[in-house]
């Protein structure tokens, strides 16, 4: 902002010639004259538009045109939630994608609901009979692609749901396991300290023995039963199979009757070839010796 010391006159003139004429005529006043563009006049020839429409309009029966003008059908969802349905009242927000598309959808719905009785009256069908085969706008191949895509989307969702559930289950199972282990450890600790105390003469009561013994027997048996039902886990089984049971050696290199009689590893060429050239012929990839390399280097 700058402080204006003189009055500013705004002039709607474009050309210097006009400016000169205005000066001659005495229209220009002293002070700062600012040149501004004329506000653009946009054409809106309402009369012309109406005339044009009247000329251009074709009075066709409705059956030829099949057009309808209507507001969208009532929004059931928003009514159920008792939200204020703003689009019904006034402006539709073009940026809210979901709202906008629902608006278009409901407009089409309202059209159909209004048009059905009219179509029936003019005996125009909307459903084609089962055996009517005709070319569709999208080819069958394309529809197959669409179907596959939808199915794959569904499968992905299902898989992710399953994975989530499994993860939750595992977490929960882990929690329970940890709790059980901790409980057991605490009991053991309590027991040991009680025994120690008795041994060192700090307490002379022996009640802890009976109570713990009863509880321990029952709980240990109960937990063992639960664990043994499933046996070793899949991971354990796999590791046993791979690394064996620790003690016994692999025993794959023993000379048994079967291994002696097994001639599948016999290659006649190699057996009768008298150990000639190795696979390709040794020298193909062989690196030249030090003196040869030196000579090559000196030459280049």
């Amino acid at each position, binding site marked *: 902002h700058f402080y204006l010391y003189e009055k500013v006159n705004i002039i709607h003139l474009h050309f210097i010639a006009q400016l000169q004429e205005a000066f001659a005529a005495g229209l220009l006043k002293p002070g700062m004259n600012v040149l501004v563009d004329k506000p653009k006049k946009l054409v809106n020839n309402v009369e012309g538009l109406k005339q044009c429409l009247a000329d251009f309009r074709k009075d066709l029966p409705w059956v030829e045109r099949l057009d309808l003008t209507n507001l969208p059908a009532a929004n059931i969802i928003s009514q159920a939630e008792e939200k204020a349905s703003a689009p019904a009242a006034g402006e539709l927000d073009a940026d809210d994608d979901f709202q906008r598309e629902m608006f278009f959808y409901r407009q*089409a719905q309202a059209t159909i609901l209004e048009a059905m009785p009219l179509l029936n009256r003019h005996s125009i069908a909307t459903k084609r009979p089962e055996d009517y085969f005709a070319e569709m706008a999208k080819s069958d191949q394309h529809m197959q692609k669409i179907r596959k895509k939808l199915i794959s989307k569904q499968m992905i969702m299902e898989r992710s749901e399953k994975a989530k559930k499994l993860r939750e289950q595992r977490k929960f199972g882990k929690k329970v396991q940890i709790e059980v282990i901790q409980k057991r450890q605490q009991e053991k600790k309590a027991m040991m300290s009680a025994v120690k105390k008795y041994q060192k003469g700090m307490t002379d009561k022996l009640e802890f023995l009976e109570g713990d013994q009863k509880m321990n027997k029952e709980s240990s048996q109960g937990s063992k039963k639960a664990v043994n039902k499933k046996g070793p886990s899949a991971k354990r089984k796999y590791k046993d199979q791979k690394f064996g049971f620790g003690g016994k050696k692999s025993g794959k290199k023993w000379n048994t009757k079967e291994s002696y009689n097994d001639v599948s590893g016999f290659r006649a060429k190699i057996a009768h070839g008298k150990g000639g050239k190795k696979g390709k012929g040794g020298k193909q990839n062989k690196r030249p010796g030090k003196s040869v390399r030196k000579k090559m280097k000196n030459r280049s």
Partner: protein
Amino acid sequence: MDQQPSADREKLPGRSISGKWTNKERVLIFSSRGINFRTRHLMQDLRTMMPHAKADTKMDRKDKLFVINEVCEIKNCNKCLYFEAKKKQDLYMWISNSPHGPSAKFLVQNIHTLAELKLTGNCLKGSRPLLSFDPKFDKEPHYALLKELFIQTFSTPRYHPKSQPFVDHVFTFTIADNRIWFRNYQIIEEDGSLVEIGPRFVLNLMKIFQGSFGGPTLYENPDFRSPNMHRREMRLAAAAKVREKQMVKEMQKGKKTSAKEDLESDVTADVFLTPAEEKPADIQTEAPEPKVVKKKQKAFKRQRMQMARR
């Protein structure tokens, strides 16, 4: 999957007699050179959807627009949809009633073609559409004129030889944000469940002319900003932001490096200072005695517990 339509037409339940095709509307759909794949597919889709449409070769942009009227006459078409691509980015669509009638120019945006996998509906090729308009079309004279143009162009004439007698899809034209949104839905159930078929696009009105591809301007859209201006504005805004940031940085730099004023030394600052009295220097000649630390005697835990019990 094709069938001889004429043979079946007499057997159809909805049709008593194959009628005469009286409403002779033919639409010429073609484009200029330099269109991209999306525009080409959109044109093909429109030709699929409208059995009363005819195709033509690409027109050179050097020719003036009124040449199109002659092309239409040659092809015996009375409506025209002409797609013009500029700068390989912007697509303009002309819709016009060929010999005398009004014409309109639009900027086309947000094109989605029939081939998109998210548009899952399907309809008979050449079936007649229902047209659905927003009530806002009746409120303004220019929209009313556009509505009439759309009705005459997009509705398939009854008993057209290439058309199918069923009505199984709806075209919707809605006005939102000063633009016209076009959607195409398939009618699945008669109670109103719909699936979108496509194509879909948005039309931004520029001008309406009294003649076909020319003539006096009847209406100019005040809210229309040409895509060039739009891009320029974005660039200017970005540039202005960068310049502002730089200015701020420079100002801060200036502040740091500018000479700071020296605070004048206060003459009266040391008026109330009184120096402390001098203490005699104390020199220690003998080392100090070592401290004796007494250890506390605490009883062991067991003993403490016994004592506590007692």
